[in-house]
């Protein structure tokens, strides 16, 4: 689905991603892990186009065939079916919940004018609070809104940056199940950043551990041993 090759990214003078290679197989959930500040969020932003990359390739397989993403504008990427749930929620604080969701309609190719009912089914609180301003929601509600908003696009590739953050346990579990369901039934591909091992273990297919801007270990999720964790995730 997405193949990343030799990706280099800089913030001003500081080199954040170093010759990064990464494969995100279609129809699977790939989980990126790593300590604070190693560049996970930066990687996702680079895929979305929110930060400029210095060099490297992002090859994305869409219906129309393989597309080089680095040449695409940000808004074009979401129109190619990439949904993004950023870290820190990034909802539109002064738009109502409903309007927040409606922004996602822009990227849909089918010109749908209504918010898919499925989103509300998944997060009933959003329906309840439809007319409240996004910024007034509680942290967890905002996170649910951010996920719901990405689902409005009906993405082919869903990028999630710590989606469980601030969400109550039973809904976290529910989110995990929905993701699995979408993967299994609709063939969705997921690129996930997650720190919480139980969640990763339960819902991801593959893992990648990053350190200092490059992957240092990868494999099937079952191969994620305590050994590896000690080695790369302990401070």
């Amino acid at each position, binding site marked *: 689905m997405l193949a990343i090759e030799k990706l280099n990214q800089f913030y001003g003078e500081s080199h954040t991603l170093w010759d990064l290679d990464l494969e995100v197989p279609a129809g699977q959930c790939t989980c990126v892990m790593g300590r604070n500040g190693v560049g996970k969020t930066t990687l996702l932003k680079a895929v*979305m*186009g*929110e930060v400029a990359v210095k060099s490297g390739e992002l090859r994305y397989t869409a219906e129309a065939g393989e597309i080089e993403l680095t040449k695409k*504008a*940000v*808004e074009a*990427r*979401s*129109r190619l079916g990439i949904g*993004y749930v*950023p870290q820190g929620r*990034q*909802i*539109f*604080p*002064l*738009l109502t919940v409903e*309007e927040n969701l*409606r*922004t*996602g309609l*822009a*990227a*849909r190719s089918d010109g749908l004018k209504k918010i898919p009912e499925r989103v509300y089914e998944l997060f009933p609180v959003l329906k309840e609070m439809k007319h409240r*301003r*996004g*910024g*007034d929601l509680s942290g967890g509600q905002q996170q649910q809104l951010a996920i719901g*908003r990405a689902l409005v*696009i009906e993405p082919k590739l869903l990028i999630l940056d710590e989606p469980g953050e601030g969400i109550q346990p039973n809904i976290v579990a529910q989110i995990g199940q929905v993701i699995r369901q979408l993967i299994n039934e609709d063939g969705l591909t997921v690129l996930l950043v997650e720190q919480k091992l139980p969640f990763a273990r339960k819902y991801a297919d593959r893992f990648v551990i990053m350190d200092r801007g490059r992957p240092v270990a990868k494999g099937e999720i079952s191969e994620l041993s305590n050994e590896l964790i000690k080695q790369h995730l302990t401070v």
Partner: protein
Amino acid sequence: MRRFLSLALLCFLLLGITLNAQAQSTDAASSSTNDAAALELLEALDVESYTAKGEAITAILQSDDERARDWLQALLDGRLQRTEDGRFVLVLENRGRDWPVADVLTGEALGEMSRRDLERIGINNNLRNQLRSAIAVVDLYSLNVERRRTSAERLLGEVDGELVPTLDDLIAQEEDEQVRYRLTQAVAIYRAEAGEMAGVEALDGSLHPRSRVALSRAANGDDPVVANAAAASLSGIEQQLKINRGLETLYFGLSLGSVLVLAAIGLAITFGVMGVINMAHGELMMLGAYTTWAMQQLLPGQPGLALILSIPAGFMVAALAGVAIERGVIQFLKGRPLETLLATFGISLILQQLVRTVISPLNRTVITPEWMSGSLVVNDALSLTLNRMYVLGFALVVFAGLMLIMRRTRLGLEVRAVTQNRAMARSMGIRATRVDIMTFALGSGVAGLAGVALSQLTNVGPNLGQNYIIDSFMVVVFGGVGNLWGTLVAGLSLGVINQVLEPWAGAVLAKIIVLVFIILFIQKRPRGLFPQKGRAAEG
């Protein structure tokens, strides 16, 4: 002077003929023999002394020439002129260096003449009054109801004893309700001033200023009964006047408010919604106003049509200028809202000077079309100026339109999303660049519309924008940034407050008080009239 009208009317009546009866009996053949007499009549006008001219006017009035009214009208308009060879001509169009003229007596067009070679038969305000009255007298017998109404109106306060019986006759014959009412009133005013009870009674409840003058004279009269009745009438009228004055002030306030709303509403989009501190907003309005001027130049003689066409044209011109500004400058300042202040200030300087250099540093004349000038008369004490009524309506329509666009179209949602979180909006597939261009164009276009409207109220000149920019920002902020309703309510209420204060505080102090009021109000509501509430706004 005051009594001239009745005098004129009297002479006119003494002749025992009416012009319209005359007009029917005149035939073309007799006109050439009349020309010599006519020339003599006109010659009498071409003298130095205004007194002599006055006499000449009376003479014309008493002549039985059917062209008398036209001559008097031409004289009144300053179009009656003389060539060097002594011919009387009518100037058809007196702008520029050479004017098209026609012979007064024959009506034959004489082509263009240099203004140097023409000498106007001058009149002054006294003569102007006399002429108006003279025309009114003629018109009192006119078949045209409008003319009769105008002349009846002129009679208010101008009637004297000798005229009363004639007028009573006329009243009896008159078919038109309004003319009859005015004539009755005119007679009543004379009677009230003469201390007659009938006059006082007839004037009860009349709001016309002349009636009031008459009543107050009657109230100071000798007969205590009449005086008391007049005083009672007067106090009733005063009461009525107070109400009317209140309504008038409210109208003034709303109309000033609508100007503020129009000036601010475009800014409520570019600044309030997009966050661009657009100091060139005023100059965009100026472009709209100049578009109106240019339209009127393109369509000479059709100021009304030109004005209507200016609405789309003004919008387009300003919107295109807005696009140019957005593409040329503002797009490079994303995320640096304060810098937009600097750049757009520069743009406003450039636009101002551009107009000075390319067009002129002087103000331009924009003509008010017939249907927009004058007032809508509600009653004798209250009339609402038409141009401002149109502007008020226009402001409301523009507001409603904008509201629809911002609330009901996708653009409204997208622009808010883009301003609140640009990166995220783009990640959601919103074409931020396009949204920026369209929104800025919309805000600018509305500024252009404001300019079109302002061209009917104030100077169309290079300083137009400067005069409104401060007020515009104040209205937007006072209403609460980002809230269109706020802009509307703020504009209208500031307008009303200002106009309510003005009569007792004076214009300067009223303005100061309004500013102090804004400062204090913001203390109470630090985020304007309609603030964004809740967590979201506090950040």
